[in-house]
């Protein structure tokens, strides 16, 4: 309903702007810079910027106007300032190349900054070599879509690609972010949607969530980020159909969940990560219908997680399916497909007749003595695992799937 309302608002906004005047900025036209055009423009006007390169040392858009780029004009801050700041409501900024914002220790210089505004759309821009890409603060009903944010600075001089702080009802869709510190950063952002984005090759997290409740992210791809994706201290997060892949290294996780409650993780794919999902202090999480394949560790669920359910997931070709650090687990595994399951199904109901214990003895050993990684797949290790499976004594008794699926779940 809210999304509908905001899109209606946008439609209205477009109507208004069509009715307003159009100011053309370009070489040899009335206005030679965006700043000059904005100074003259009235509420509801459209500023059309023609192709070319313009110096833009923090151009402030403080009127309710539509700013369109034609043929991707370039706004360049020459590493001296921010590029564009939007401080008015109902602004649309579309079709620019925005580049070379300043780096700073005291201020977060951004490519496009939005501060205390609502109903603003930032779409189809290409941000190149900015410190922070798009910076939203204290705003509502913001749409950020179709932008390409590409950082090219070293880790210490990189800000976040799309940064939002204290916002609500933000929609971030179909953007592509790379080379920044965090691809997408959320802090105190509520009721928002992150959809269809690609966040790859960032220095730290592909997506970083802090204290942000009631958010949804779906159909995103997070690939090869320095530390994967982190979701922390949040409630009621819905994560659907995302892809987490190739997040490699020690303490790097496809998806890190810390102190998360009442959330859903459904239909995601975790491929070739060192650890697919890491859960610490989580409560009431449902992890359903996900694919875990070719990960080092599929799932790592610490003993302080309670009341979570893991159902109908596929575990394929992981070095280790599940590990935990305690002997008691208060979570439930059911109907998962495990490629390492060696049981049988005599009554042909598609469910294995003996429970599967996903925590192997060798996984426990490697936890204590990491150097024993060298013995992986050796005969002695499989022998130990077999013995332990037959007579479990060291692995946690309560971590088991009572009804493992015999067949892989197809999606």
């Amino acid at each position, binding site marked *: 309903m809210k999304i509908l309302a905001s899109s209606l608002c946008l439609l209205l906004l477009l109507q208004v702007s069509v009715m307003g005047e159009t100011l053309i900025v370009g070489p040899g036209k009335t206005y030679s810079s965006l700043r000059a055009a904005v100074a003259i423009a009235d509420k509801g006007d459209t500023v059309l910027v023609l192709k070319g390169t313009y110096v833009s040392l923090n151009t402030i858009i403080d009127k309710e106007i539509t700013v369109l780029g034609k043929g991707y004009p370039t706004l360049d801050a020459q590493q001296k300032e921010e590029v564009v700041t939007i401080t008015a409501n109902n602004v649309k900024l579309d079709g620019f190349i925005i580049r070379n914002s300043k780096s700073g220790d005291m201020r977060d210089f951004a490519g496009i900054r939005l501060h205390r505004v609502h109903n603003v759309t930032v779409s189809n821009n290409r941000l190149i070599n900015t410190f922070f890409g798009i910076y939203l603060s204290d705003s509502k009903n913001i749409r950020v879509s179709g932008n390409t944010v590409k950082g090219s600075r070293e880790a210490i001089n990189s800000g976040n690609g799309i940064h939002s702080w204290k916002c609500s009802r933000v929609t971030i869709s179909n953007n592509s972010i790379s080379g920044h510190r965090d691809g997408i950063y959320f802090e105190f952002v509520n009721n928002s949607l992150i959809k269809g984005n690609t966040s790859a090759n960032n220095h730290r997290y592909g997506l970083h969530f802090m204290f942000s409740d009631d958010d949804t992210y779906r159909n995103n791809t997070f690939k090869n980020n320095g530390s994967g994706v982190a979701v922390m201290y949040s409630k009621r997060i819905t994560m659907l159909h995302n892809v987490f892949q190739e997040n*490699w*290294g*020690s*303490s*790097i996780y496809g998806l890190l969940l810390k102190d998360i409650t009442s959330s859903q993780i459904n239909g995601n794919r975790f491929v*070739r*990560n*060192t*650890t697919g999902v890491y859960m610490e202090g989580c409560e009431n999480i449902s992890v359903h219908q996900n694919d875990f394949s*070719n*990960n*080092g*560790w599929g799932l790592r669920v610490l003993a302080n997680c309670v009341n979570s359910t893991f159902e109908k997931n596929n575990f*394929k*070709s992981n*070095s*280790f399916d599940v590990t935990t650090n305690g002997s008691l687990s208060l979570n439930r595994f059911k109907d998962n497909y495990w*490629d390492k399951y060696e049981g049988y199904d005599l009554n042909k109901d598609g469910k294995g007749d003996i429970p599967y214990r996903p925590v192997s003895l060798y996984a426990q*050993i490697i936890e*204590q*003595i*990491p*150097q*024993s*990684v*060298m*013995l*992986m*797949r*050796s*005969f*002695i*290790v*499989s022998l130990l695992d077999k013995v332990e499976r037959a007579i479990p004594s060291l692995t946690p008794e309560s971590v088991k799937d009572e009804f493992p699926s015999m067949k892989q779940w197809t999606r």
Partner: protein
Amino acid sequence: MWKIAKYIIFDIIKSKVLIAYTALLALISVSIFMMDTDVTKGLVSISTVVMIIVPLVSVVFATTYIFNASEFTELLVSQPISRKDILLGKYVGIGASILGAFILGVCVPVSLFAFSVTALVLMLVGCLLSLSFVSLAFLAATMTSDKAKGIGLSLMIWFYCAIIFDGLVLLFLFSFNDYPLEKAMIILTSLNPVDLGRVMILLQLDISALMGYTGALYQKFFGSGYGMLFATVFQMVWITVPLLLALRIFKRKDL
């Protein structure tokens, strides 16, 4: 040398044991791929076979053959041929036949069903293991004088490399857990050709997990081509050193 090798190859091709070995390997490979649709899982199963069966057959077959052909060797020694040429000729002959069996039995089905980098590494590992265990068989056969002892020794070598060694390493890890063991582990791995082969396959299959290790040395070992290079070079050492030792003994041996 090449002539001797040629005679030996022709002789071995006629033997039923080698044909049975080729057939067994082919049967295992093909049935694994037929049974499971997941190709990677198939490769994992085949790598287990390669780690256990290939060394066993290589070492036992080679030792037995050397002892069975001892009269032929005596005949050759009486001719004006250097002992070095005789031994190397025998090595080339036996090694080539066993390698041929492995290529027909494993490499061909694997290339047909699951050609990938992992498969290539698996084939390379199998070939190197075959050759190194033939080498060890030569050492066992030249060190001993009668057949029973020779085969016993070669079986011991296999048992040690394939099973006991890893158990000892695990024990070592448990006892010296508090010490930095990274370097020690890499050195220990190089002391066993089967482990070297396994590490090469690990570097393909479990790289996601291996990258989770924190130590700098392991990071370097696993993360770059360094580990692969290291393992291949040491496999080569495991082929040449036992053979050279066998040659040394054979030159002075009273037949």
